[in-house]
């Protein structure tokens, strides 16, 4: 549901195939890209990609992080034997890039293009803004682009314009000017058609008269998948480097993908004592904010939300997952579950609460064992029925449940849960006159 980074391997494939339609020199280049994963069989790879045995090769990790040369994670100008050896030595190893540590598990191999670093490294990037896409071009690419940022020329392509009618602001490319201009225009078309939101080739260089993109960073808009089935092929969206999703996060993601409603779950600290089960993409952020405002950010166990009128079954699965996670490890101080939300527009509160109540009832024993206190705040269609069902559950569940409606400020339950003030019995009102 947003912009997603893609592998250099797939980015180049989409790019080369797209460029080949107008630039003959890109024909067949998409075939000369090979991806190596943990379980890749070298014999089969060579059989599928006979060029691996014939050419000098480049190899590098393909896991959505850059500056690979700087981190010694670039194999240049080696034959197949040495390239495979180089990859094998690094496969499965944990490396630290910037502040992030992660395991290497995916590598890209492509043909090596000899070029001299000082002369011919150029830079192109395209980035989406609200009203236009900006094309960045520089004759000084590679590692020098940042220190030479003032030499980068920018062209804004209005979102409703065709690239053919926009005049490009070009740096001095000398005799390559016409060729690069043609390349950039073709590149923009692939970018637009493939619903890219960011595309950076740094650097691209030259092999004789051919333009050769070396390093590529790309992000696409994954909501455009339905328009791009042909252009993208079977495109994967890998997690960012070092990021691992738990089984439970993957499970909720799989439900989310199957329904028109929205279900999100991120585990922040599995041993945290404060668990949120909040309805609404906007409200869930405010609940998390409030937990942090009150100084409990370290105790906040998860971020998540359910919205868009999910079914009783989906809500049940969601609640069960959260309850299971929060009752795995006991904490002597007990735990807090906040079943929060604003006043829904059309989500049926009674129905979604039914799913939550079913899960709570199932986890009765674990909730008691973990000394969980539950705070509920919600409004919207059928909220009275939903809240009274929750209150009724409180009589039998064996753990305290406090239930509030729209008359109580949305996040007041957070303070009640985290900063119980025995002197002040009445919760903060939503305020004002009524």
């Amino acid at each position, binding site marked *: 549901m947003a912009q997603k980074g893609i592998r250099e391997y797939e980015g180049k494939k989409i790019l080369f195939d797209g460029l080949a339609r107008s630039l003959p020199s890109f024909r067949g280049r998409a075939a000369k890209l090979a991806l190596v994963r943990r379980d890749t069989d070298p014999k089969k790879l060579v059989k599928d990609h006979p060029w691996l045995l014939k050419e000098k090769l480049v190899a590098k990790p393909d896991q959505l992080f850059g500056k690979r040369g700087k981190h010694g994670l670039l194999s240049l100008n080696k034959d197949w034997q040495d390239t495979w050896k180089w990859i094998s030595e690094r496969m499965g190893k944990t490396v630290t890039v910037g502040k992030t540590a992660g395991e290497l598990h995916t590598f890209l191999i492509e043909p090596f293009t000899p070029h001299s670093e000082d002369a011919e490294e150029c830079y192109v990037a395209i980035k*989406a803004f609200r009203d236009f896409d900006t094309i960045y071009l520089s004759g000084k690419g590679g590692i020098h682009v940042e220190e030479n940022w003032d030499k980068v020329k920018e062209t804004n392509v209005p979102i409703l314009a065709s690239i053919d009618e926009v005049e490009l602001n070009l740096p001095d490319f000398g005799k390559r000017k016409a060729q690069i201009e043609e390349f950039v225009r073709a590149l923009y078309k692939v970018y637009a058609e493939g619903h890219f939101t960011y595309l950076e080739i740094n650097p691209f260089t030259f092999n004789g008269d051919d333009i050769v993109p070396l390093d590529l960073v790309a992000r696409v808009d994954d909501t455009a998948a339905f328009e791009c089935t042909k252009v993208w092929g079977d495109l994967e969206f890998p997690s960012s480097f070092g990021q691992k999703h738990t089984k439970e996060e993957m499970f909720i993601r799989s439900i989310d993908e199957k329904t028109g409603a929205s279900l999100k779950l991120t585990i922040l600290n599995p041993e945290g004592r404060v668990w949120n089960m909040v309805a609404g993409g906007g409200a869930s952020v405010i609940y998390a904010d409030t937990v942090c405002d009150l100084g409990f950010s370290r105790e906040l166990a998860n971020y998540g939300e359910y919205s868009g009128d999910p079914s009783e079954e989906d809500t049940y699965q969601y609640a069960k997952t959260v309850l299971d996670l929060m009752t795995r490890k006991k904490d002597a101080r007990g735990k807090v579950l906040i079943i929060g939300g604003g006043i829904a527009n059309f989500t049926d509160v009674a129905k979604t609460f039914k799913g939550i109540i079913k899960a709570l009832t199932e986890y009765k024993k674990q909730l008691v064992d973990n000394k969980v206190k539950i705070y509920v705040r919600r409004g919207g269609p059928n909220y009275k029925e939903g809240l009274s069902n929750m209150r009724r559950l409180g009589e039998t569940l064996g753990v305290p449940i406090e239930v509030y409606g729209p008359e109580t400020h949305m996040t007041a339950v957070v303070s009640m849960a985290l900063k119980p003030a025995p002197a002040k019995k009445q919760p903060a009102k939503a305020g004002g006159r009524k």
Partner: protein
Amino acid sequence: MKPELFTKDTTAIVYGYHVNAIQRMLDFDYACGRKVPSVAAIVNPGSEGYHKVFFGKGEVLLPMYGDFATAAAKHPKADVVVNFASFRSAFDSSMEALNHPNIRTVAVIAEGVPERRARQLAATARKLDKMVIGPATVGGIKAGCFKIANTAGTYDNIVESKLHRPGSVGFVSKSGGLSNECYNIIARNTDGLYEGIAIGGDAYPGSTLLDHILRYEAIPAVKMIVALGEIGGTEELRIVEALKAGKITKPLVIWVTGTCSTMFPAGVQFGHAGAKAGSALETAQAKNQALKEAGALVPDSFNDYGVLVNETYNKLVKKGVIKPAAEVEAPALPMDFAQALKEGKIRKATTFINTISNEKKEELEYLNIPISKVLSSNMGIGGVIGLLWFKRELPEYGRKFLETALMLTADHGPAVSGAHNAIVTARAGKDIISSLVSGLLTIGPRFGGAIDGAAQEFKRAYDAGLTPEQFIKDMKKKGIPVPGIGHRVKSVTNPDMRVTQLKGFCRKNFKKTTLLDYALEVEKLTTAKKGNLILNVDGCIGISFVDMLSSTGSFTAQEIDDIVKMGCLNALFVVGRSIGLFGHIFDQKRLKQPMYRTPYDEIAYMTDL
């Protein structure tokens, strides 16, 4: 464009057949006292007609068209499109609406519209000087005037949040869910909302927070502006610039949510697509800080949001800028029948009673037996007839008897009236149901009725204590042949094997065969007169049926009487013979037989008779 998007006369075309949202729009209209429904027409691709909907206490019809162009042409005054099209078709349908000269505002509800498409929509709207609200939004509401789709939820909530009459506050947020929460906060802390818009949680909404803030700035009736921003994007920084440039002079209370993100590991995607800080400038803290410095009224946390709204409002009242809007009583909306029933507020007499089956259970049930158990118990069609006709689980011999009866009655050749009629109808080119029914309609006293007749007459005679002689005499006196007695060719010396087998089965399995024994006594007397006056197969089925029911011991004499009188035996014949009739119908169709006409030489023309 003019700052006001909606008036009390605004009407919309709703794209997509979303009946709940349409009803909620009209319920809001009723609350506001609108004379004309805010929905002029519905576009339901590929389908047209009318949609019936409540408008207050009564009902109205809303025209429904198969395409947008027709709807727009027929309803030139409608200048808003509420677009419920899915993420796949939202772009094309919204572009069509935007490009139509009648339309000024398009609200795009769909989530998951590609960013590039959303940007194209936004740019097109700007080029045409029109307004896009969304995508990925619940819409918006102008208090007392017009409501988009599901905004502000239920009627109770609308009245509770005083949205049926205008107040002095203009509100805008990204989140649709939170906008409703904020209408509540605004209602409790001010004289109410003037207008509220949720621009949607995507990265590139068609209109922005600033677009709406500037509209509110230009609308004299809006005295203060309340907004809710969100982590991610630089939209709030444009508000900062507008504040600095003096473009916003009305008090602006604003809070940017997502302050927790700095505590989170990088890469956490919040619920909204646009809610991800790409740089330090896009964090909630940075944006709140910048807004505060530029002169916006920024609370310390969301907890204090309502308090600050209240303080700001009170100051404006004190200054005389705001004259608090008068309270207006909203009319009570009649409760929906389903809702009232659910809450136990009303009761309703039913018009039907059903005691044999239930499809409302977890699984379909025949007489409280789940269909899976019906199948696994191998009760057969005889058992099913027992459950659904007699409400009993019949013993095996009873089920077998019924199935035997069905097999025996299934067909009797093409010449009998039922089959003849079915064949003629099938050959006239009629469908199978008509052909079947034309055959079935011949079943009665003369054709197929002997089973029922035999059971009725023999049972009546036996129950009345008539001797076989008295019974025959009685029938003769009435001038009707004894039903179930007599065969065209079969006789005592050339017995009907079907009857022999059936008799054997009954004797072997039934606990008693009282009526059959009685019938055979009658047969002795009739065959003495004429050899072919035997108990025929129809008679045997009807009479043994009564014995079968008595044998089970689970029916009272009265119940057996009722079953026979209800005509269950005719029903048995109808079910059995339908099999044969279908056979004849399919036979004719398979053979592609032409129209049947009775040959002239089959008819004696005696018109001068």
